[in-house]
């Protein structure tokens, strides 16, 4: 039981690490942003997962329902999602400008060009 109980978390960890890996290992600036997204989304899932209560329902008060899932993480994640999209938007905007300035969105090529400066 213990093992099964933690399984979800482990899957989530795998997801997080996929995103993390994309960020640090990949060269393409857009891809990095994608990685960030995946990383964050998996963190969100992590929060939501911890909020679930067996047999609970969505935390909307209604007659005859006793068990609700934990609303607080939901709130936090609502906030976090917004932060996420905000970051994405900014990052992408920067990517666009970088592309204008350097004509590429590959990290190493950019570094090469910076060396020349």
């Amino acid at each position: 039981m213990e093992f099964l109980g933690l399984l979800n978390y482990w899957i989530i960890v795998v997801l997080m690490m996929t995103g993390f890996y994309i960020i640090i290992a990949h060269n393409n600036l857009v891809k990095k942003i994608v990685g960030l997204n995946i990383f964050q989304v998996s963190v969100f899932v992590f929060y939501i997962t911890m909020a679930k209560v067996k047999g609970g329902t969505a935390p909307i008060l209604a007659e005859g329902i006793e068990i609700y899932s934990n609303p607080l993480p939901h709130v936090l994640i609502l906030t976090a999602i917004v932060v996420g999209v905000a970051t994405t938007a900014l990052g992408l905007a920067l990517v666009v400008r970088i592309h204008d300035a350097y004509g590429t969105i590959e990290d190493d090529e950019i570094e090469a060009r910076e060396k020349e400066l």
Partner: protein
Amino acid sequence: MATQYPALQVVLALLAAPVCLILRRPNAAWAVATVITWISLALALSLLGRVLETGVILYPMGDWAAPWGIEYQIDTVNAFMLVIVTLIGSVVMPFARASVKAEIEEERIYLFYCMYLLNLAGLLGIAITGDVFNLFVFLEISSLSSYVMISLGRDKRALTAAYRYLVMGTIGATFYIIGVGMMYMTTGSLNMADLAAILPAVADSRTVLVALGFLTVGLSLKLALFPLHLWLPNAYTYAPSAVTVFLAASGTKVAVYAFIRIFFTVFGGVEIFTAGVIPQILALLAALAMIVASTVAVYQTDVKRLLAYSSIAQIGYMVLGISMVTVTGLAGTIVHLFNHAIMKSGLFMAMGCILFKIGAVQLDQFEGLGKRMPVTMAAFVAGGFSLIGVPLTVGFVSKWYLVQAALEKGWWLAVAAILASSLLAVIYIWRVVEVAYFRPPPKGSAEVSEAPLSMLVPLWILIGASYYFGIDATQTLDIAFAAAETLFAPAL
């Protein structure tokens, strides 16, 4: 009304930002920003005064008592941070006017000040809040705005600098969130004081340990602790001068504050920090930061970048003080937060003046600058002394207490590291001085031409402050020690 200051401290700046957006006129935006910043300074000072008199101020948002609502818990440490941030902010504003005009396109300036206000609000929000998640939200406000402001530098490398900062910063923030999540999982609370009360009970949980680890890494990324500093040099080098001044003086400082807060308040009652291996690791990294960063600084040809590396070294000082886990060490860190803020912002302002006149801060552009911009260079030298830690400067004061703390602890290597890095400081400052004073100005540019007063006056205010508080350090020290003791006192 005074009871509402804590809210106003942050909300004023928040409210002013959209105003700037609507106004859409550079000067109007500047005026608004300036007024707001100065008011915030007044608020911060009065808050500090009240805290010193009456102790901790509690301010539950929306009258929802913690831990259900978000509550501000302002003790000496917060208040002092608020003062530092707003103080630098208010000195930067007059300076910014000319410098920003010179470095940013006309039609973007109003948005710039909007960003500046948001950044200010974000930093204040971090410094004042008593809720770990709320801290994250404001961390993001300040981070996003600083990414934007950095990207406004004239050099196109500013863009990549901002992008890299964005990526690393977001990783840091996400790590922080993971840490918070795990803490929440084990305690069910997000309020700092509440966490501090609960955590000891569950301290042995591996989850908490990992949580602490992630918080540490996340914040270290934000405060550019060696070797997680990679984003900093470019960011500081290519950002517009005013931004560099403000960020260098307040951005990393607030991150350091958050670091302190997490370790000493939230995990205050928990052995795993005070007794665990983490302090040793931190001390090691700090010492490395001091030595390596200072050494790298010696070999820089871009003076702004040189100063950026010296900032990394100075952050090493602060972390070292933290890692000692003694009142003296912590007090040394806190007083250094203030001291380094004023001296480094002064130095970066000098850079701003030179950029304004000469257009670049490569070392060879400094030839004969001692004659061409005597006032600015004098300020630079004076600030440099402070960086070295010559007596009568603030740098000397912080160094004194850090060394003393290290001696109490018997950490000889730490002592050696501090002294060695100040000797390295002698070298990298002197390289600049020699070029500026012992090389003739290049042909045709020998005439004296100084930056406008609106830039020189703030510059000298900061330099003056870095001597005033070096000559009579008693006020700052008293506050710092009071703060350190509150941090060691059992959390409320």
